[in-house]
């Protein structure tokens, strides 16, 4: 089937396009991009003025929870949530039960993804067996089965030596090591950012230095091994400092920031609601200077990607005392609106840069297709409505879990439609798109 997306603002940084153009999808490929393309039997979709057509967004840090914790989320519900959030692909973390340290788990995830037939799923495998930090996982097997990177996310790789070996070994396959940067002993029993608000509320703190130590370690080992090192969910200004220095020295370090770390601060621990477990995640919400540093990194190019760290948890698990609650919030369906409202409309970055952060760079870092609207590329397309008024309603989320601190937020900008492989997998009824 041929589909012509007509008259939208096409933003394709890889090909240097930003302007009103038409986009032709033929089957599962991009067939043409240009002005006033002939209709020629295509189904026409007229894109309203101002609405943006861009390469499909890729969330490179998502927890799909299957196998093992299907009460929180499954691959099926996760990809449904993803496409509603404008994502045509997600990379999923290995801290499932059992851990994704072998081809069986990887295959299971991919089989479920194919069955759901919505967003693409790129599994990320474990660095070590069962992520215990003792022996390397069978990384070649993981690559063969379809993994695009390795991580022991949930915690840092246990020792510098193991991280070094993982980088050297994975480097053979061109796979990046993604690291949850943290020093275990400094983290201790911490549950919130070590600062005034945690002190006032009597919550044990995790200092920014805890994360930065992990970043410094990874950067040095990346320099030593020459392998790619990616900082997951960066939150602290000291971490950004380390990443910048690494990049200046030509070291292969990249990093991602989650929307909550460029929009929220530790003030949310106390208000509007005290001890809201939907403000508990690791790394924690930090102080204003850290949030501002993340914004500056996003603006000056030091930050490579925006990734949600989508971490669904069941209501019962979060409805407990703050220190007992699991870390994490969902993010797939709030990322685009937060990014459009707080980055683009706020004047921090312009739209093409946002597409780099949400599509171009994640594809490049993971070594997967996508990130551009080049002719012949897979027809993964996201249609964004930058002026759409969006109100976040937790109970309307398609994710199985509703643990978000953004409930009730009124934002400017949202997703109009999502195409994966040329198929329309999501359309927002409020966006006024006639599909």
């Amino acid at each position, binding site marked *: 089937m041929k589909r012509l997306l007509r008259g939208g603002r096409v933003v394709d940084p890889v090909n240097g396009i930003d302007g009103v153009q038409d986009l032709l999808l033929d089957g599962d490929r991009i067939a043409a991009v240009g002005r006033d393309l002939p209709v020629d039997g295509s189904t026409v979709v007229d894109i309203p003025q101002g609405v943006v057509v861009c390469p499909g967004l890729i969330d490179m840090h998502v927890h799909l929870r299957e196998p093992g914790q299907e009460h929180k989320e499954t691959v099926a519900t996760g990809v449904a949530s993803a496409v509603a959030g404008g994502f045509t692909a997600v990379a999923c973390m290995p801290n499932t039960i059992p851990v994704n340290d072998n081809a069986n788990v990887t295959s299971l995830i991919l089989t479920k993804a194919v069955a759901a037939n919505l967003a693409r799923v790129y599994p990320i495998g474990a660095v070590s067996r069962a992520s215990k930090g003792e022996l390397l996982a069978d990384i070649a097997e993981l690559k063969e089965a379809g993994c695009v990177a390795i991580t022991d996310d949930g915690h840092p790789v246990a020792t510098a030596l193991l991280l070094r070996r993982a980088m050297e070994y994975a480097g053979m396959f061109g796979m990046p090591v993604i690291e949850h940067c943290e020093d275990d002993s400094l983290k201790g029993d911490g549950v919130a950012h*070590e*600062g005034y608000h945690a*002190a006032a*509320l*009597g*919550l044990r703190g995790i200092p920014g230095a805890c994360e930065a130590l992990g970043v410094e370690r990874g950067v040095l080992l990346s320099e030593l091994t020459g392998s790619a090192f990616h900082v997951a969910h960066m939150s602290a200004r000291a971490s950004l400092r380390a990443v910048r220095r690494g990049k200046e020295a030509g070291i292969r370090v990249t990093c991602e920031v989650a929307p909550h770390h460029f929009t929220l601060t530790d003030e949310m621990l106390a208000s509007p609601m005290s001890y809201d477990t939907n403000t508990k995640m690791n790394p924690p919400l930090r102080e204003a200077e850290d949030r501002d540093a993340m914004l500056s990194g996003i603006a000056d190019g030091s930050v490579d990607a925006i990734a949600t760290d989508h971490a669904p948890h069941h209501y*019962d698990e979060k409805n*407990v005392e*703050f*220190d007992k609650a699991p870390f994490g919030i969902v993010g797939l369906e709030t990322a685009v609106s937060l990014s459009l409202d707080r980055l683009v409309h706020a004047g921090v970055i312009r739209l093409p840069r946002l597409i780099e952060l949400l599509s171009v760079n994640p594809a490049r870092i993971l070594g997967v297709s996508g990130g551009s609207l080049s002719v012949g590329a897979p027809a993964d397309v996201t249609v964004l409505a930058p002026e759409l008024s969006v109100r976040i309603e937790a109970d309307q989320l398609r994710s199985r879990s509703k643990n978000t601190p953004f409930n009730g937020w009124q934002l400017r900008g949202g997703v109009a439609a999502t195409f994966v492989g040329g198929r329309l997998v999501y359309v927002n009824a409020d966006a006024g798109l006639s599909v």
Partner: protein
Amino acid sequence: MSGPIVAQLGGAPGITVLRNKDLLGIADLTTDEISLILDTAEAMQEIGSRDVKKVPALRGKTIVNLFFEPSTRTRTSFEIAEKRLSADTLNIASTSSSATKGETLADTALNLEAMRPDMIVLRHASSGACHLLSRLCHAGIINAGDGMHEHPTQALLDAFTIREQKKRLADLKVTIVGDLLHSRVLRSNVHLLTRMGAEVWVCGPPTLMPTEITRFGVRATSSIDDAVADADVIMLLRIQLERMQGTLFPSLREYFNVFGMTEARLRLAKPDVMIMHPGPINRGVEIASEVADGPYSVILEQVANGVAIRMAVLYLLAGGPAHETAA
């Protein structure tokens, strides 16, 4: 002739009821509310000197003491206070509760709520546990100590004890020494004393100081001599032995040498200094025995005042029409 009968210590505050249904922390109280509680406690104090130590003010009200952390002092103090107000009390201690069977706090709360208690007094090891309970229950919640967060009735009885002797709280130099980092008593006292105009100093090793402590409006120092110089009140906080294992300080002996309240250090303070401690005391660690038992110590008065303060809080939260439980 009309003097002692008509005169009122502290003057009349502008209000006579508390705004919230709960007492979760001093941080939520205005200075008027703090004064109201202290003034009401004075009236309650008198009841303890009668032969029949009972008034019918909370007759027919059910109050549950839900204590997830062991406590003799605080729990019995609340229990006596509740009984003096003629309330029906229920004591639930964690070892006997279904918490040991793995029931969550939320479920415990909902089960209790189904029996419609008027108030729940909660002590729990997690900061914010009372906030969680307050969201789930219609009953008024009184925080008897939640994790490292607050212990509001302790700070109120401390203030009451100070006010009784010094006739005011404003412009007094109050020095607090000890494990400031983990102490809920510290946070409550800092909120209350700074709000009421006292000059608060906190002292301890940097390892036991909360982040950005000066942002709470206090002077912070690791010099015990500076901290106690000309102090009107010195409050000692308990040092827990477990903290040593956490590498927070090398040994109890060293702690006592550097920060312990000895008679020599006492002499740096004002001649009419008050020595206070929320208890239980570790003799020879945060305080020397001679000081604990000496003439400046008001540690036992604090305990006695605890009942009056808790009666005041219970009465103000449970005793009037403004707080009839909704629906």
